[in-house]
């Protein structure tokens, strides 16, 4: 071992980074699922949505939840983002490699990096809008979607679910918790379910009249 490694001692940072990436990712994926389920309460009606939102607010769950998500969101960016090939040379190699190899999981990783970067931007905007426009009400949510920002939510929904799906798949593969093939199918089906759920909620907001 070299001098600089001996004097700095045992470095466990790579293990900790990996675990923080894992748990922050799982937390965010779990949050995304909850978010989409809560949000789809609009399908059951404006009243149900508002009641749910009010309950969460009264118990400070919304405040605690949103603050925690904002913090974990950026922690996840810092830990998972360290893996992104940032140098020009590296990116050139990766594109060349991925194009040549025609390997589904390698493409999924490239897609995850791209979706991750876009989510960082769109997710930050989304969080800012929600935080500055509290409390969450069916009326204000519907207004945002009806005032021409539907595309924003469609893109964010698709990217988040795809990103979370690929992320969970890869983590479970890395830690060897499930066999690959069935895991891929299960995560695929769950992702499609959440995308459909999200679309139905968006459609309901879009159609919500008399606001």
């Amino acid at each position, binding site marked *: 071992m070299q001098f600089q490694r001996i004097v700095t001692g045992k470095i466990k940072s790579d293990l900790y980074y990996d675990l923080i990436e894992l748990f922050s990712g799982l937390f965010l994926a779990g949050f995304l699922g909850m978010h989409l389920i809560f949000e789809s309460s609009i399908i059951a009606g404006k009243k149900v949505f508002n009641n749910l939102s009010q309950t969460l607010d009264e118990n400070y769950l919304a405040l605690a939840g949103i603050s925690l998500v904002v913090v974990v969101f950026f922690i996840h960016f810092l830990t998972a983002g360290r893996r992104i090939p940032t140098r020009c040379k590296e990116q050139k190699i990766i594109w060349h*490699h991925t194009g040549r190899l025609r390997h589904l*999981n390698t493409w999924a990783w490239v897609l995850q990096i791209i979706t991750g970067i876009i989510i960082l931007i769109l997710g930050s905007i989304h969080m800012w809008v929600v935080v500055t426009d509290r409390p969450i009400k069916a009326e204000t949510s519907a207004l945002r979607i009806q005032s021409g920002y539907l595309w924003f939510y469609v893109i964010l929904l698709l990217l988040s679910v795809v990103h979370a799906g690929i992320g969970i798949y890869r983590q479970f593969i890395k830690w060897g918790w499930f066999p690959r093939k069935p895991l891929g199918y299960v995560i695929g089906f769950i992702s499609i379910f959440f995308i459909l759920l999200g679309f139905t909620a968006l459609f309901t907001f879009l159609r919500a009249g008399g606001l």
Partner: protein
Amino acid sequence: MKNRELTLNIFRYDPNIPGREPYMQPYSLQETEGMTIFIALNQIRENQDPSLKFDFVCRAAICGSCGMLVNGRPRLACKTLTRDLPEVITLMPLPVFKLIGDLSVDTGSWFRQLSIKTGAWVHSDKSFNPNCQEERMSNETALKIYEAERCIECGCCIAGCATANIRDDFLGAAGLYKIARFMVDPRDERPEEKYFDVVSSEEGVFGCLGLMACEDNCPMELPLQVQLAYVRRKMALIGFRV
């Protein structure tokens, strides 16, 4: 499908000739029954171009010398049948390893470095007594070690790995597989933290992105995902202990 006229586009480059740029050279040849890429390459070298460089030894998927990119994917030339491929076949050398020329790469130096870095031998303080009986090992353990020794070091997993392509110091699936072999060997007396030092960094198991191109391109069809996950879990456990 009989008697197809194959076109092999082969990467040509000699790093020893200054000023020479790499290029792709097409060769045509008639497909024969049971033809492998290895047979096709030998025919080209014999009948068309004696200057073509490529490696082979055993032609039976044992020595791991003839790894190359067949239509972009790492394969053993001797194990790849032309009948499973389209009429136009592209052959390129494996990335990551030092290019000797054309399709020939030096996997040997890379694997030697790997062995030195990971200490890929049984570490023991016991002195050898030729008059004593050998220590016995359970059949289960022996089979485990045997399974972990099936790697032929062809380098296909390394060539398919995105991390290995951009990080020269990454151990890759072959390296972590090698480590797993010594972890299950009871004769190896290395304390756990020794393994941790070697494997638990971005150069080792925590640099793995889990893309599984190693497993999907392994000519020996080794259970790399299972082994890599085993090393990862073990390293996490050791990490919290040491």
